[in-house]
């Protein structure tokens, strides 16, 4: 059996593919890689279909032993990658002989690196996906030292690329947003969202929790309760304390706090890489707002 053995995991290493959208009506979050372009790039470099399952590695510290020869690629932010202690670099296909150990260091900025392996991780799928959903606890359990990960059959030959640049996770982000369904519940919403917010350490795959100047409700809505309604990835939900949560892939499918605005989808990969302490501001272009 083609396989990788987990030697060490770092803070959190999860199997992720493109998730399981389409089940929200049953209460199942979409899940999937938070930085989708990083996973699909890693898969292309390793010769896989873009949708193959790889490993989402939070803040490095992952070491894997090849139980069989295979090709891997590591993407995301710039990060040290070593094979048996020798630097090999990220964002390029790397061939591993049977028994060799690949180690991913801590990224120099950002949070999540992605490792793809030829054939993909062939863990059991649930609802059509191998993604680990940390909210619902669906999908393969978080990796632990000693796990043996079965690999699929490589569909083709790994392709190199001349130059592939790592993701750069800036320490300040400007995130374009459009209005949410309850935008009218808030007073001075555009100006409030445009102030500086800080990503807190309570953030995870469910959502980014922000600290800053609390958003205030319009008088008519000050005490209003919201009957539970559907939530989406990128929704900016505002609980009674006024501090927004930006929902990511493992978000609950319904919720009882108002959604004030919604992040443009193109910004989701950058949010996936936002470390605690990252500063961000939400920018609502008029064109987007009036759409």
């Amino acid at each position, binding site marked *: 059996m083609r396989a990788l053995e987990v030697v060490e995991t770092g803070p959190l290493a999860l199997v992720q593919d493109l998730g399981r959208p389409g089940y929200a009506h*049953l209460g199942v979050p979409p899940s999937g890689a938070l930085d989708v372009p990083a996973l699909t790039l890693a898969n292309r470099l390793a010769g896989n279909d873009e949708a193959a399952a790889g490993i989402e590695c939070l803040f490095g510290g992952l070491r894997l032993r090849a139980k069989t020869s295979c090709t891997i690629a590591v993407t995301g932010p710039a990060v040290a990658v070593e094979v048996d202690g020798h630097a090999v670099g990220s964002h390029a296909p790397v061939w591993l002989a049977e028994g060799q150990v690949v180690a991913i260091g801590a990224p120099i900025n950002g949070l999540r690196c992605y490792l793809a392996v030829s054939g993909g991780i062939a863990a059991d799928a649930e609802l059509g996906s191998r993604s680990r959903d940390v909210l619902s606890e*669906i999908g393969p359990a978080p990796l632990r030292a000693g796990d043996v990960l079965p690999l699929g059959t490589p569909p083709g030959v790994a392709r190199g690329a001349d130059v592939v640049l790592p993701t750069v996770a800036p320490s300040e982000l400007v995130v374009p947003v459009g209005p949410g369904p309850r935008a009218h519940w808030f007073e001075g919403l555009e100006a409030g969202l445009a102030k500086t917010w800080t990503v807190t350490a309570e953030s995870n795959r469910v959502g980014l929790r922000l600290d800053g100047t609390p958003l205030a409700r319009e008088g008519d809505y000050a005490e209003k309760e919201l009957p539970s309604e*559907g939530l989406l990835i990128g929704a900016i939900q505002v609980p009674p304390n006024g501090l927004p949560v930006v929902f990511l892939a493992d978000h609950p499918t*319904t919720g009882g706090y108002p959604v004030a605005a919604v992040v443009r989808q193109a910004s989701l990969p950058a949010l996936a890489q936002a470390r605690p302490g990252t500063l961000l501001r939400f920018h609502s272009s008029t064109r987007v707002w009036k759409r």
Partner: protein
Amino acid sequence: MRWRAYGEHAALLDCASLTQAIAAHAAVSSARPSGIAELVPGARSLLVVETPGSGALAAVRDLLSGADLEHPPDGEPREITLDVTYDGEDLELVAQDAGVSLEDVVRLHTDAVYTVAFTGFAPGFGYLTGLPGPLRQPRLPSPRTRVPPGSVGIAGEFTGVYPRVSPGGWRLIGHTRAVLFDPRADPPALLAPGDRVRFRSAG
């Protein structure tokens, strides 16, 4: 009824009542225009997400603009019966607050026919509407940290079954052995929005 913006590829229909929300969901589910990526009913709303470029949102708006949402369409919903042992930790509290006997609580809960209005909280957790008046009671003042799977609870206008161990603040009146959610089964959830549900006392 009013449409609200929800990002680039979705819109939320604000409904005046739970009945209207259920009717809107039923109307869209039965017509099922192509290109709908997600259709998520809420307690007073319906969230429609389209596959980018499919035009499904416009199709749903057209469909609902002429629909009679005061009278849900006469479909043939799935009917599911759940066997319940009425031995919940809050059964006496519920009887007391309702001003009835324990037997009456069971009779009230089993006589009604419920509709799965929406899901959430956990995979397979359905919010069931149709609860008789005396059983519409508030949540516990402080939620339990561990509610066993299969627990049948009530809260406000809803009743429901916890699919798995979780924290929870609903008043518990019994438990069922039915499997509410199995990610390896097809379909994975026993209850989906629009289903009719009855509870039967298993003694």
